[in-house]
């Protein structure tokens, strides 16, 4: 086993363990914090794959914004923050069944894929992944359309949020 494989196994174990803690811990804030460590494990996996841009964006977006939002939502909606409610809802077995089925499906799908058995070619030296990604995002024969559609979607979400928060009767926010 190479050093890279050992590191990957440790990171995968850490990520999966944290993921398990997210669904088994009884305290909601703890669940959110375990989610942070799961997301961090995913970021490390990206870094191991030499996808440094994705790794950093994972930390900025998921830990810096979404996890913080989760923690805020938990804190603002629960009366007692040492919440010890029911651990699972009655549909837990449906979720467990679906994840097992998904795992089996993915397992067989990937076994039949030739990419699983071939070794990836080494990245050529001097390959600048981030400028390739940037060019691909704005070039017409690559991903400019999905990129712009996603941007429009986000703007629509923003406008929607402003509309929901805006109170036309009083004419301004929070006055």
């Amino acid at each position, binding site marked *: 086993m190479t050093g890279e494989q050992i590191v990957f196994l440790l990171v995968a174990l850490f990520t999966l363990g944290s993921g398990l803690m997210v669904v088994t811990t009884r305290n909601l804030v703890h669940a959110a914090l375990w989610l942070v460590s799961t997301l961090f494990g995913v970021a490390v996996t990206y870094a191991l794959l030499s996808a440094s*841009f994705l790794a950093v964006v994972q930390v900025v977006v998921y830990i810096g914004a979404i*996890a913080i939002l989760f923690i805020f939502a938990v804190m603002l909606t629960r009366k007692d923050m040492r919440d010890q409610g029911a651990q699972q809802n009655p549909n837990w077995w449906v979720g467990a069944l679906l994840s097992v089925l998904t795992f089996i499906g993915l397992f067989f799908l990937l076994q039949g894929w030739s990419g699983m058995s071939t070794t990836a070619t080494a990245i050529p030296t001097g390959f600048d992944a981030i400028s390739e990604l940037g060019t691909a995002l704005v070039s017409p024969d690559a991903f400019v359309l999905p990129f712009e559609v996603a941007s429009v979607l986000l703007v629509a979400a923003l406008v929607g949020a402003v509309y929901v928060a805006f109170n036309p009767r009083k004419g301004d926010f929070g*006055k």
Partner: protein
Amino acid sequence: MSFWNDPLKVAADWLLGIFTGWGLPEIAANILIGFLGVLLLISVLMLVDIFLVWVERKVVSRFQDRIGPNRVGPFGLIQPFADIIKLIIKEDTTPSGADKVVYNIAPMLSMMSVLILWAVVPLAPTILGVDLNIGALYIIAAGAIGTLSIIMAGWSSNNKFALIGAFRQVAVMVSFEIPMLTMLLIPTIFAGSMGMGRIIESQQIWFVFLAPLAALIFLIAAIAELGRAPFDMAEGESELVSGYNIEYSGMKFGMFYAGELLHAFTFGGFWSILFFGGYRFFGLQDVSPFLAIAVIIFKAFIGYWIIMWVKYTLLRIRIDHMLGFNWKFLTPLAFTLLMMTALLNALLAGTPTWIYISVMFLSNILLAWIATEIARSYSRREREKVEGSGAAPVAEGVHH
């Protein structure tokens, strides 16, 4: 290649020779050398941090017309060591009902979020941790971990003041991250790379002359990110006692305090890297890497001094004013500046350097002037609405 030209490489080769001589495989030796390098960097930073306590206390006392620490050692230089001994031997208290594990992790994360920033700081052309090609984004990612540590500290302390302080601080950090990230993109446009090394190397002319407004907005966002005055309502002594770190005692409080000082110094460093040429100073950086380190540390201290100057001169701003200032003024201004810079950079490609510099500089000044005029006319209208209504301006004031 001598020690004086590339000290890190020479030291690493020397250590590699020793370790492989002991029979270690080369890869293990390289990992060990990497760890030693990190250990050296962090030890030096922590020593600088101890010195920063003295600097901060001396500077604040000068701003407040005092002398500051002057009893222990020459100029009070031994004072920070006395402070540290005090912090270490203090009783380590944990409030009842605190979430112990989270409570203990928070100070470590806070310190860590500052220390990992130094991985991308190029101290000299050859002395740097790693030249990430996403260095600018990495700064924001490290800030995200700092935000997390504050909310963990505030929540786990089981204290209402700590939680309110954490809420305020996180609201400020999350909102001021946006103008900061936008301003990080402006040196990126000029240099054509997010890597700190490339940004410094392409500053034949300091970027502050190309984008003075960007440098100013970055400084404001950095001060807000640090939670220092005038953006320190998370601390708000008069209302919250001390904010998110109120329940921490001894060295755990020391971690937050030292982390804040080092963070301010680090942002002074990033300000100098992004806009003031980093280790470049009239070719001094090519003479010796040690001179380059001296230059960048000196520039970082100037940045740190300006941050302190602002902190000890201005009053605290109310939180709604501050968030309004960010979302209604700074963020639109930052976006406009980014679009303008990107557009001008594309239009002016291939023009002589002096035209490029003067157009960039003048457009920045023009945009700053327009933004101030808009803000001025808006505040005049608001004032007239309050004063012009005549009837009971006091009640109106209460209403707001």
